[in-house]
Structure formats: C-alpha cells, structure tokens
C-alpha cells in the first residue's frame, strides 16, 4: 500500500509524465468526440476543392473538396486502433516468448532465440509487401496484425533478459521448491516484479506501431478502405499538395502523429523516473 502511494506521489510530481498524459488525452478525446463535430463524412466531396481553412471547413479542404478536419479526426481513430491492436499483440508475443525463453532456458531458449533473431531481420514492410501484393482488400485490422506479428523481437529480448536475472532469485527458488507450477511461478512471482517494465514496453510498442502504420500507408501498403492519417499524407503527396502549397492538408496528419508518439515516448521516460528511484532528478 505504501509503495503504491509512493509511485503516485512521484507520478503526480513528474512533469514529463503530466505533459505527455495531457497531450495524449487531448488526442484521445479528439478521436472520440471529434467525429461528432465533423459536418461532413471523411470521404465526402463536401465543398469547393483547394480551399484554405475557413469557418465552414476548419482545416480547409483537399483538392477534391473533402473536409480535412473530418479526415483528421476519423484518421485518429484508425491510428489509435492500430496502436492498440498492433502494440497489444506485439507486447503479448514479446512477453510470452520472453518469459518462456527466460524461464525455461536450455533448448527452448535456444530455439526461441533463433526465432527472435530471424524475425528481427525481416522488416514489417517486407512481409506486408508480399501480403499486400496478393490481398486486394485489406482493412486496418489486417495491417495491425501484421505489424504486431513482426515487431515483438526487441520486447522479447528485453523481457527474456529480465526474466533471466529474476529466475535465480531466492523467492523464485522457494516457489519452485514448494512445487508451484512453472506458469504460476511466471505469472505469480516473476511478472509482478517487472510490471512497470511490461507496461512501458506496451507504451513503446503502441508508439512504434503507429509510426509503422503511417509509413506503410504512405508507401501504398495501407488499408484499402477507410481513412487513416498515413493515407491522408499519401493522397496529399500524390495530388501535389506540396507543389501547390496546400499546407493545411500537409500539416494536420503529421502534427497529430508526432504529438501522439512524442507524448507516449515522453510518458515512458517519465514513468521510468517514477519507477526507478535512481533516475529521479535530485
């Protein structure tokens, strides 16, 4: 009970955590409530094209008269969905493989290590390339799953190393002597001791997945239906928004992504300082 209060005390005092959390909350609220304020659908040809921000179109319109504000807020929803699904899947796989490899050791560790090394080398882009080439209709979910399936290796490595050091501690030995089953030891004894670490892994995977999705959308490996911030950028470049100086079309999607991912990274550093007494500023 006391330790929880201590963490809360440092969390509330930590500037980085607070700033990151506020920015993230703003964009989450925008993703939830923004579409309610959007007067037009994200893909509707709603008004005159090539229109700078005005009262009617808060962030202006695209070349075809689509509402940039509407595209941004709907795109935010896709972004958070990718972060949640892909980041969640990658964290789950990383934890699973890291725990098993670190706890069992020996041959199992050797094999899982080999798998980790192989997946490390194969970029998400390459795998999605092949899938995208032959799957004509792709949703955001398919994209998220493939990002999740390829971005777990660093998490698995880090969690394996942590499990390795915890495995030989007295309290784990004690649990083993009393005949606890391995799964129970992992989740009852080892996992609680690295909860903060696992949470921070999820935050980093969340941000990483968002960036990966934007890049893939931009190259043309994104979802074929719907709207996302990456697709907005792809369309903007495709229809010469740079050459035409349509800054209102170019800036919003990138600002949103940079702010969200930056806020996540910032929160991560803040949390690190909260959980790790050595890092607290003196």
């Amino acid at each position, binding site marked *: 009970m006391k330790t929880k209060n201590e963490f809360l005390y440092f969390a509330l005092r930590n500037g980085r955590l607070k700033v990151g959390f506020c920015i993230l909350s703003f964009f989450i609220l925008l993703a939830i409530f923004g579409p309610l304020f959007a007067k037009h659908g994200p893909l509707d040809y709603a008004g005159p094209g090539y229109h700078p921000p005005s009262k009617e179109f808060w962030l202006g319109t695209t070349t075809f008269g689509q509402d940039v504000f509407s595209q941004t807020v709907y795109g935010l929803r896709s972004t958070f969905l990718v972060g949640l699904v892909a980041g969640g899947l990658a964290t789950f796989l990383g934890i699973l493989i890291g725990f098993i490899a670190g706890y069992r050791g020996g041959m199992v560790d050797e094999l899982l290590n080999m798998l980790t090394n192989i997946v*490390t080398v194969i970029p998400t882009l390459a*795998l999605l390339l092949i899938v995208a080439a032959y799957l004509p209709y792709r949703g955001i979910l398919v994209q998220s799953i493939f990002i999740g399936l390829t971005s777990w290796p660093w998490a698995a490595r880090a969690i394996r190393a942590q499990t390795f050091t915890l495995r030989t501690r007295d309290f784990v030995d004690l649990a083993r002597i009393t005949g606890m089953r391995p799964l129970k030891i992992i989740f009852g004894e080892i996992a609680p001791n690295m909860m903060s670490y696992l949470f921070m892994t999820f935050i980093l995977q969340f941000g990483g997945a968002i960036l990966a999705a934007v*890049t893939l959308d931009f*190259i*043309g490996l994104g979802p074929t239906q719907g709207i996302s911030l990456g697709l907005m950028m792809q369309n*903007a470049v495709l229809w010469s928004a740079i050459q035409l100086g349509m800054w209102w079309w170019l800036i919003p999607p990138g600002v949103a*992504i940079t*702010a969200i991912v930056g806020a996540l990274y910032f929160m991560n550093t803040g949390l690190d300082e909260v959980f790790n007494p050595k890092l607290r500023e003196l």
Partner: protein
Amino acid sequence: MGAYFRRKIIIYLLTFVFAVTIDWMIPRFMPGNPITNLLSRFSTRSDTTEVIAGYLNEIYGLDKSPLRQYVAFWAGLFRGDLGVSLYVTGAPVTRVITRALPFDLALLIPAIMLSYILGNKFGAFAARKKKLDGIVLPIWYVLTATPYMWLGILLAWFFGVALDVLPIAGAYSFSMVPGWNWAFIWDFLKHWILPFSSLFLVQFGGWAIGMRNMIIYELEAEYSRYLESLGASSTLVRRYAYKNAVLPQITGLALQLGVIVAGALATEVVFSYPGIGHLLKEAIMNQDYFLIQGCFLFIIVGVLLANIILDIAYIMIDPRIRHTAGGETV
C-alpha cells in the same frame, strides 16, 4: 569466438532460406491464381495474352511438382534471375533494382552513420547537464516521434515551395548527364540534401535520447560511483560510461534497421528519389508481382548484410566476446 560465429552464421542462413521460402510460397498459396490476375490486365489482345501466359507458366512452372518449382526458384535466384518487371518496360527485375540501389545507399549509409555518431556524442554530452538537457530533450523527442516522410514533406514544402531554393523531385535535373564533373555533383547534392536531412534528423533524435538515458544509467552504476569516490575527474568517469553505453546502442541500431529502411523508402516517395522506395510504390500501384518479389528479397538481404556488419562491429568493440575462446554469449 568460433562457436559464436558459427551460431550467427547458422541463424543468418536460416533467415535467408526462410525469406526466400516466403517469397516463393506466397504467390502460390494465396487465394486466386496470380497468372489470371496478371492476365486480366492484358486482356485487350488475345494473341499477346497467350504469349504472356506461356511465359508466366514457364517462370512459375505451375505444372511441375512443388518441390521442383522450389528448386527451380533457388536456381533462378543464384543465376540472378528474378523474372521480368512487367511494369518497367519488360526489363529484368535484377537490372531494374540494381540501377535503383545506388540511390538508396547514397541516402541510407551517410544518414545512418552520421546520425549514429553525432547522436551518440551529443546525447552523451547532454546527459546529467540539467539546463542543456531540459532544452534539447523535448526537441529530440519531437524529432524521434516524427514520421520520416512527414519531416520530408515539411522540408520539401518549406525549402522547395515556400522559399523555393531547393529542388524537390528526382536525384538530379533532367538536363544533367550523370558524370564526375562539379556541375553534376553540385546538382546531385542539391537534390540529395533534403531527403538526407529528413532521415538524419529523425534518427539523430532517437540516438541522442538513447545515449542520454544509457549514460545516466551508467553514471549511477557502482563502478562510476567507485571511480568518483577515488577522485577521478568527471571526464574520465564519463569516458568509461560511454564505452559501456555504446554497446546497447549497437544492438539498438540492429533492431532499428527495418524501421529505418522503411522510413527511407517512404522518404524517397516524397522526393520522387529514384531508389527502391520509388520503384516499390510504382510496383505496388501497378501490381507488378515480380518487381515486388525482387524488392522484398533485396530489402531482406540488405538488412541481413547490415546485421552481419553490426555483429562484427560489436565483436570488435566488446572485449568480452573478443577474448573468450569458447564463445560464451549472453
């Protein structure tokens, strides 16, 4: 050390075989016949369709047994035969890609190396310096959170359109003939600087943050405390901390390679830079299967080679691996 190398080589070979197998497998086991898919785009004249169908059947060898198809695929690979790019005027895929490759390397190698070296140095310098740290850290966070191509878009818009001082399309002007003269090199550099900058800046932020955090960890470690208590100067302590902090950064670089390559490809699309990224975008939009397959292989082989180089660098820097004869690795 021998055992260490042997294990690494086995892993890399396995990865390569795995990648080639995926490359071979997917068109064959995906729903729909790739040949009919392809032919639907050439349906205008029946005689051309037949010629292409014959050629495709020969390449895919779909009438043979899967094992023989697989062997034939490997044999083609070793001859450097990756099929023909149907989109880029029927040139062999290998030639199309090798023509684009120098542009990728010209962007990636300087961007990775410079950002890595400067980012590490500057990150180590800023660590535990309260005022400086407070100013630069937020900037680095924004940089590392920026999608590569968005920074590219902003730079292109600002320098190319708003200020109109730098070109934003292609690797050199159309009027130029590539050659080793100053006019061409200057023209090339003017086209190169913006895509390079977007790659450099984003990575720089990441390395600087990573190094700053590592140095703070190391300065809290027992050996640093011990050195301090002996009265060693802070410069000396920091030098030791840097040596220890640089190793995880190399592992970090290896883990980041896939992301960096993807970012570079996207940045090339922004600037119509004629590297593999640009090629890839065209190939995807035109469903050019062979070209996509070829790009896939080249990207994986590139990342694989970079990993091997980093492994060797790691061994050269880490005395623990260099000096263990048995090759015990953690």
